[in-house]
């Protein structure tokens, strides 16, 4: 436990001792504002809710989270510090978990800093704050899932650019599977059960369910199992160092 905590602290403070933290947070907040107030046109809707704000989160995470995750392991491999880290008395999963949790906590902070949007809506109207909290939880879980994919892929390469691009592509697949453009491809010939299965694998579908205020166990299990699966693969990749 002390090992996970030590690795977590090192990784987490690493964000703030480099410009990464500040650049990431500023851009995340800036893009959120653009999407919510201009593309989402939150005022014109005349409804006191945060839907235009949360709708864009999958698309924001699609690019920003892989950018955050790409250095998690590939930087360690490039500099060689992975050799230092993995010859300390820590297990692979402790290292994987410590680093992952640090990055996830960091996205959590970025997400929390969007609170002015929530205050604005409360000031202008009377939103259902239960739904807002559910949506925040859903958004945080979804960020965790994107991050687990990014962390795992970053362990596969020393090159951060490759880690980023591949992670974006994989995340993109998980994002679009529930959208009509994908389901329409199958709707003409595949049975309904197959379409529903494909659609249920989508980040967007699962996130939308939670962000409507319905915290369904299925959606939680979906994100949790996705995170566990990718972190498990991550430990396998980090554990096999013959190519390092």
């Amino acid at each position, binding site marked *: 436990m*002390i*090992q996970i*905590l*030590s*690795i977590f*602290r*090192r990784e987490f*403070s*690493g964000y703030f*001792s*480099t410009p990464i933290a500040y650049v990431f947070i500023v851009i995340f907040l800036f893009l959120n504002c653009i999407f919510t107030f201009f593309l989402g046109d939150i005022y014109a809707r005349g409804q006191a809710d945060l839907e235009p704000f949360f709708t864009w989160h999958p698309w924001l995470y699609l690019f920003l989270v892989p950018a955050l995750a790409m250095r998690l392991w590939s930087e360690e491999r490039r*500099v*060689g*510090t992975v*050799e*230092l880290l*993995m*010859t*300390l*008395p*820590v*297990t692979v999963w402790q290292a994987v978990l410590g680093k992952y949790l640090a990055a996830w906590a960091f996205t959590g902070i970025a997400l929390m800093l969007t609170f002015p949007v929530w205050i604005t809506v409360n000031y202008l109207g009377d939103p259902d704050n239960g739904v807002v909290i559910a949506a925040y939880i859903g958004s945080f879980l979804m960020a965790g899932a994107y991050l687990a994919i990014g962390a795992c892929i970053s362990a596969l390469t020393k090159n951060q650019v490759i880690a980023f691009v591949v992670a974006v592509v994989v995340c993109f697949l998980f994002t679009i599977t529930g959208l009509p453009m994908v389901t329409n491809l199958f709707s003409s010939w595949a049975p309904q059960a197959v379409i529903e299965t494909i659609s249920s694998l989508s980040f967007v579908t699962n996130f939308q369910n939670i962000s409507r205020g319905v915290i369904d166990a299925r959606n939680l299990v979906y994100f949790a199992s996705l995170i566990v699966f990718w972190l498990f693969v991550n430990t396998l990749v980090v554990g096999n*160092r*013959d190519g390092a």
Partner: protein
Amino acid sequence: MTALIEVGSVSKQFGSIRAVDSVSFTVNRGEVLGFLGPNGAGKSTTMRIITGFLTPTSGSASVCGYDLAEEGIAARARLGYLPEGSPLYGEMTALEFLRFTASVRGLSTSKVAERIKWVVGQLGLGPVLAQPIETLSKGFKRRVGLAQSVLHDPDVLILDEPTDGLDPNQKHEVRGLIRTMSAHKAIIISTHLLEEVDAVCTRAMVINHGKVIVDCTPDELASMSRYRNAVTVCASTSSGGDLRVTLEGLAGVSSVEHVPKATVSNRFIAFPKDGKSIVGEVTRHLQEKGWEIEELEVDGGRLDEVFRDLTTTGSAKKPLH
């Protein structure tokens, strides 16, 4: 003596390359084992297997009785490791970095302060503790890496080229530190510097193409040199006679070579037969001739020559093991 490091017929295959080929040895407490060998000989790979970073294709390694494959955590808790090139987290300060490794190793707060004070004193890190590691010179980076490896006072130390990039004074200090610690630890260092073997190692192991070619004391290694006990002599032969002919005539001398210097030309090196000492015989004869000896030097043996012989021809002249 107890064996703190045990390596049992370890092999490591990378694709079609056999980086380490059934290497076996043990290192006891109080021993400093020097790994010698050309680049790519398998020194670093062997070290990575002992530290648990790489899993051997076959064979096993253990540290303090803990098998790396079975009880890796217990084994790694008892060893300190300086990886090749001393990789470090550049954005951390030296102090933050040392605190990080100490906390991962579970050292208590009071112990951490005491140990950090000790390593900082030993390695002269005081002036740079608050600086980000990426701004440090190569020498300081190496010393931060060393500090991390000895911070928890481990029984086993694995140091991959510990003095690489240090200036002569720093090399001297690091070697002094290794010698000080060597009495109650088992230490393996790898090096290209043959003088380092003489300076700190109690045992030398030459590795080439993944195989151990020689495992002996540095003195035994030096004794494989044809320069062992060779005598370099420069004498004024004003009373007449030829130095070279005289040396060649001695019973113990096998051959003589001319080794002129910029200022003196009458300077020769006499190689002994079978590495036996000939300095007594040489001086006696020169004195009998009444020649004044201006320079007389007995060679202990040249490690670089032995090293070249062993690693380029691929076979030792006088293999000990």
